[in-house]
Every structure is written in structure tokens, then in C-alpha cells.
């Protein structure tokens, strides 16, 4: 039910996540942030089983930070994605796997490239130009496929995101209370004004 979207642009990645925390037929919270910052230049957005999501995201966050502290350098977004995939793949072989789907948005300062990784609970990891998890993907992927361009600038990316959100608000049969929008680029991770 949660909405998790990611769009890459030429030198930034846009992440949008719904603000509603839904449990059963109730909305428990309208300011739920479904993201965690993993390092200076990478962000994880997540959806899935209630308890698992935050536990898992913070596990990755803690490990990424531990690595930075020990080695004095941040893991690259690609490295973090592979680490995340490994954690999920190992969990999948345990008694109770993490039922978490994530997007990892990052900007690699060494190669000066933005990246977006789609990872599902089965630990399939794919690098994509734009991505979504859950029902939101059925509504937005067609729009993104039609309008996304490899070398879009941030403004064009945000326009595209707005079109996606508008479509979701029109079609999804419940109120997801708008989305938080975050930008990951060379300057780090920053919040944008919410799209209601």
C-alpha cells in the first residue's frame, strides 16, 4: 500500500515516499518517513512488512556508518546496494526472512554519477533509471517509461514526479496523505517541499 518512487536525473536522484502509515483499515500516522539516510550521498527508501522495514533500514544504515567510521571513507552507492542485497539474500535463507523491498538512491562522488537500485525481498538487485515498489509501480511506470529521459535536469525530473503523484492521487482508492520528496546529489541528501 505504501508508495515508494525513485527517478534519476542527470546529476541527482529524486525519491518520493507516501506519508501515511497504514495498518489494516486505519491510517495511524500522516507524517511517516519511509526513508533512512545511509551515508552523506545515499538514501534508502523502503516498504514491506511492518516491523521488518525500519529494523532492516537501520541495520544497513548502522553498518554503512560503521564502515565510514572505521575506514574514513563512505561506501559508494553501488557498494551499499551490493551489501544490502547480500543482507537480504542471507536473511532469505534464515528462519524468518526480512520482507522488505527497497530503493537505494545515491550519488557517487568519485564517478560523478547518480544511481538508483531496485532491490526486492528476494534480493534481486537491479540498477534502473526510474523505479517503484508495490502498487504505485502499476500506476506510474507507464508514465515514467513515456517521459523519462536519461539526461533530464532536476526541474524536469520534479515535473515528471508531480505528474506521477497526480496520477496516483487520481487513481489510488485511498488517501496516502501526500509524499515526502528527497533529493540525492553531489551536495548530499536534502528535503524538498512536500507534494500534497
Amino acid at each position, binding site marked *: 500500500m505504501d508508495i515508494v518512487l525513485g527517478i534519476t536525473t542527470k546529476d541527482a536522484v529524486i525519491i518520493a515516499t507516501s506519508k501515511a502509515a497504514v495498518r489494516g483499515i486505519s491510517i495511524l500516522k500522516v507524517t511517516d518517513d519511509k526513508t533512512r539516510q545511509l551515508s552523506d550521498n545515499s538514501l534508502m527508501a523502503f516498504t514491506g512488512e511492518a516491523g521488518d522495514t525500519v529494523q532492516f533500514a537501520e541495520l544497513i544504515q548502522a553498518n554503512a556508518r560503521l564502515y565510514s567510521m572505521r575506514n574514513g571513507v563512505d561506501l559508494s552507492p553501488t557498494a551499499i546496494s551490493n551489501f544490502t*542485497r547480500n543482507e537480504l539474500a542471507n536473511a*532469505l535463507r534464515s528462519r524468518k526472512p526480512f520482507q522488505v523491498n527497497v530503493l537505494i538512491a545515491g550519488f557517487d562522488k568519485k564517478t560523478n554519477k547518480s544511481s538508483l537500485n*531496485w532491490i526486492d525481498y528476494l534480493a*534481486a*538487485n*537491479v540498477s534502473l533509471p526510474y*523505479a517503484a515498489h508495490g502498487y504505485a509501480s*502499476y500506476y506510474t511506470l507507464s508514465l515514467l517509461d513515456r517521459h523519462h529521459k536519461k539526461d533530464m535536469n532536476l526541474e524536469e525530473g520534479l515535473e515528471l514526479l508531480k505528474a506521477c503523484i497526480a496520477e496516483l492521487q487520481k487513481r489510488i482508492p485511498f488517501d496516502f496523505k501526500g509524499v515526502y520528496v528527497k533529493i540525492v546529489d553531489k551536495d548530499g541528501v536534502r528535503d524538498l517541499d512536500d507534494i500534497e
Partner: protein
Amino acid sequence: MSNPQEINGGAAVAMVGKDCVAIACDLRMGSSALGVSNDFEKIFNYGNVYLGLTGLATDVLTLSDVFKFKTNLYKMREERAIEPQTFANLVSSTLYEKRFGPYFVGPIVAGINSVDNKPFICGFDLIGCIDFAKDFIVSGTASDQLYGMCESLWEPGLEADDLFETISQALLNGLDRDALSGWGAVVYIITKEKVVKRLLKTRQD
């Protein structure tokens, strides 16, 4: 969604020609009916051996890494690259090790043995039973269609350029009758002298 080998979709095929082998795969990675990626290659290279891995995407990624690790170790110990036949047995034992909790994959191997320069292909089931074939090997969600295409199109003694057309047409037309495969395709034509990788023009539906 009932069979783990059919969640993500994908297909691969290998063929033998005259002093050459070919291996090809599609590029789709999906989540049941939803297409997720059109850039998901299923062929991996280890020295002069090429491995096609179809099936559950997570296991494709895991196994491609496992074989990268094992072939690197092999190269360090033996001070030479692994031969296709040896690699086939490595795949077989790696898969059978997980006999009662298998990886949901359908591997195929193609390469030219560097000692006798003979072409070699083979395929496996998910627990490592090797299928040695003199002609062709198919794998993935379009395997039924590919069996039909290869059985009719393949003939012995194809030159590298003709083998390219035969394997491409077998794959392309096989993919068109499978909803879970397609979205682009790549073909490797392997000869003693060089390996040519071609990106095919395919339907996008």
C-alpha cells in the same frame, strides 16, 4: 507466481557450429507480469567460458558471484583459466551441494576448449544434472518454444556468421511466444580468434 523459476522470467540458448559456439539470452527482468528491467544480462564470462543463468533473479546474481569467486580461486591455484568441461563439473557439483534446498536456476555453458580447440556446450537442471549436447541447449521460461525453434532451425557445420543468424532467429522467435521473456537480446559468437557480442533488435511488447 507459483514456480520460483518463473517469477522473473528470462530465456537463454546455446548452439554449436563449425569451430565456433554461440550463446544468447534475453534482457528482461520482471516481477511476474510487471517488467522491471530491460538491461538484465543473463550471460556471464569466466575466462574463455561463458555461462548463461536463467531462473530466479536473486539466485542468478548469487550464483554468478559464486562462480566468479570459484573461477578466480581456480585461476590462482592452477595459474590458468578454467576450461569449459571443468567449469561444467564445477557448476554441477556447486548445484548438487544444495540438493535439498536448490538454487532455482537453469544454467547453460558454452565455450571452446583451449587445448583441443573443440566447441563445447552443456546444460543443467536446478540440482546439477548435466545435459551434454552436440547440437544445442535451451533454458528458461521460453524453453519449450526454444526446443521447437532449435530442433527445426539448427543444422550441423554452421559457420560463425550463419550460426549467428540461426541462434538469433531461434531466440527471437522463441521469445515472441513467451510473455515473460524478451525486451532485448544479446548474442555471443565465440571462435578461437575472437568473441563478438551483438545486441539484437527485438520487439518491445
